[in-house]
């Protein structure tokens, strides 16, 4: 445990200088909390308890949700299985915002768990940042525009395929995302078009509550603790046998075939294009790397979806200035043995493949 801590401190040092701006919310909360407590000491009215409660809540909120130490503690305490893959990715992103990796970010990768393969590239290049959020959907990319605005990267790298575009969006996962005020109506309109106004309104409301009350948004951290205490009888009952990578890939391939549909490609592509336009407007060049997954999954239907997403993405690149599309054919070939499951590469293959893609991007 101690060794791991030392290692992580070293890694934190390697991440660059501390980003003091990220501490401003904590500072404001503490100042407001202390001011309320100070005022409560002098106030003898019936509202005194309310003032003290609010003061403490603000200070506790600053301590729990606005310091890298607590985010790191949460990150160490829970596994992805306990809190969810996306949730753990959020913790990582929250830790990283307290560090300024370099004065200017050259490359920023944002995407789903497949983008995690770029982690090694980021470790070796301080001007390379990776934000990998498990299951990130096209509708969510424009919600993360603040990353591009704050880091101002010269290049944004997206790893996208029909794997992302041909899937129906699931609004339930959105509550973890930030909700930029200027995107509220945009989000509502797009969710309404896909899922109806009731789902759209419920999702936006849930996100707004999460934005206002971090205790609610990050409640999964505390619920994971109670789940540990209580045990989960239903989980015990449904323990699946361990699968080999091949079996796992086969199973996920079956899932893919039943989840990807042609009808979602255009709508998802237009959502993604919103983000691409945001990046370009921010002065970044966007590289769209055509993604791929385990060869075992491809059947005729998926090949057809691939052709469609390929043409949609290349058209997007052609339409937008400063956007480049790098198709699979231009990338190094991947074989079944490179994968640990249906979508993710083994650590060695991840490193080799991501380095090759990075070289490709730098050279283009």
């Amino acid at each position, binding site marked *: 445990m101690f060794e791991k801590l030392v290692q992580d401190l070293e890694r934190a040092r390697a991440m660059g200088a501390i980003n003091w701006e990220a501490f401003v919310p904590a500072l404001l909360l503490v100042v407001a909390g202390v001011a309320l407590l100070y005022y409560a000491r002098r106030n003898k009215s019936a*509202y005194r*308890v309310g003032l*003290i409660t609010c003061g*403490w809540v603000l200070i506790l909120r600053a301590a729990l949700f606005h310091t890298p130490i607590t985010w790191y503690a949460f990150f160490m305490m829970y596994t992805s299985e306990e809190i969810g893959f996306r949730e753990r990715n959020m913790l990582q992103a929250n830790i990283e915002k307290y560090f300024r990796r370099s004065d200017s970010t050259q490359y920023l990768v944002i995407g789903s768990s497949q983008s995690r393969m770029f982690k090694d590239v980021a470790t070796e290049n301080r001007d390379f940042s990776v934000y990998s959020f498990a299951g990130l959907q096209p509708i969510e990319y424009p919600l993360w525009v603040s990353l591009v605005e704050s880091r101002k990267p010269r290049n944004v790298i997206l790893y996208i395929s029909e794997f992302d575009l041909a899937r129906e969006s699931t609004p339930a996962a959105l509550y973890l995302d930030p909700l930029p005020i200027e995107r509220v109506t945009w989000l509502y309109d797009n969710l309404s078009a896909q899922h109806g106004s009731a789902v759209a309104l419920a999702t936006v409301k849930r996100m707004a509550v999460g934005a206002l009350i971090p205790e*609610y948004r990050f409640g999964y951290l505390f619920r994971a603790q*109670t789940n540990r*205490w*209580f045990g989960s*009888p239903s989980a015990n009952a449904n323990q699946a046998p361990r699968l080999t990578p091949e079996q796992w890939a086969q199973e996920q391939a079956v899932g893919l075939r039943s989840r990807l549909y042609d009808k979602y490609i255009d709508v998802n592509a237009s959502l993604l294009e919103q983000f691409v336009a945001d990046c370009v407007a921010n002065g970044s060049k966007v590289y769209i790397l055509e993604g791929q997954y385990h060869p075992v999954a491809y059947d005729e239907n998926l090949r057809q979806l691939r052709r469609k997403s390929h043409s949609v993405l290349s058209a997007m690149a052609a339409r937008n200035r400063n956007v480049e599309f790098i198709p699979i054919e231009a990338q190094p070939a991947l074989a079944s043995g490179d994968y640990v499951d249906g979508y993710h590469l083994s650590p060695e293959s991840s490193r080799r493949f991501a380095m090759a893609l990075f070289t490709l991007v730098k050279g283009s």
Partner: protein
Amino acid sequence: MLFNSVDFIIFFVVFYLAYRVSNLRWQNILLFFAGIIFYGYWDWRFLSLIFFSIASDYFFGIKIYEANDRRRKKLFLIGSITVNLSLLMVFKYYNFFAENLIAAGHIFGLKLDWFTLNVLLPIGISFYTFQSLSYTIDIYRDRMPPERNIFTFAVFVLFFPQLLAGPIERAVALLPQIKRERHITAEDLTLGTWLILWGYYLKIFMADNLAHSADLVYATSAHPNGLEVVLGTYAFAFQIFGDFAGYSSIAIGLARLLGFRLMTNFLFPYFVTNPQQFWHNWHISLSTWLRDYLYISLGGSKNGTLQTYRNLFLTMFLGGIWHGANWPYLFWGVYQGGILIVHRLFTSRTPRIGQEHDGAPAMALKIIFMFQVTCLGWLIFRATSAHQIGSLVQSLFTSSYALTPLAVATIKQLVFFALPAMLIQFYNWRRDDQFAILSVAAAPKAALAMVLLYSIAIWGEFNAQQFIYFQF
């Protein structure tokens, strides 16, 4: 609209800001429209039902009062009761009776061609019809004059804090508050806020989380062992208490913020030693309603022992049916009537049992015993069918009491989700004051408020789970 929804919180904040800057006339206008929005938000079509109820009871109230002789008064009262009970019969009970008659017909080889109604149960119908009924009955009993202003009467029926699930407030207590100037004090604001916070804690933290444990045991596909049935039923006992007492607490707290005083609906119901006390402390607004308008009308305890038992039984039987049209509620009513009669029998023959001056150990034993008796009632109440009641009771007596993973998880959940609330209840109960906890110093009080707030925010289920009593 549900109290535990974001929509309600936004609605109430906007409403309250307007309410605070208004005079009495405008406050009542706001209350009227707030009631309409609050109820119509669920399904605006059923507003017509409430308006019909308002119009008919307003009319009957005046007619009862103005009738010259007792016979005519009675006739109008019967009219009011018939209209109100007809609404209940059509929307709440018709399908139950029709389906059971068809089933009974099958047994005797008869093919009955009754149709069933494909309508939703109007939310809160049992509450507002009982509230309206108390108004006409009180006028008949010369306890109050009728309200001449139909708008004021509508505000009384549509008073949104308690419209959907009570407390079933009496017109004699609420109508005068609607008509007089309201002065909202600092005490109203602090007590109101505390009641709302406590209510949300009971509902969102305790009830909604324990619902999962209870649901696992009461799922129709489950085959729980004896211990799991016991623990699942305990979970349900605290769930239903948290759900309903939570709703009442929020309702009373909201009313307090508006300058109204509503009756207490729950007073330490799990710290009682006998069934009679239980009904003095559980859903007080319904039990006193049943006592005043049904038990006493039937003759109460004035006509000898047997008549008293019959009246008790009938009152509790109808109280059970009030909860809804299904067999478990009916059996629950029978059970409650039964245990009240047994308690009366024992206390009349062995008066020592009725004495309340026991030492702490004896008192504790009685409370624990009574809790088991109450829980047996909850088992009947929570079951989905008569068949499930049978199989769960069979599990209680014949199945093993092995400590399974589900049992262990349920014990931990009971400790985490129910024990803190029960400790606060215990503290207040020992001091015989439901607000005793508020007399501690400011710092511990603030710490308690913070714990409640964090518990709600972190472990709260915010997918706006309905309150159990909405279905009644």
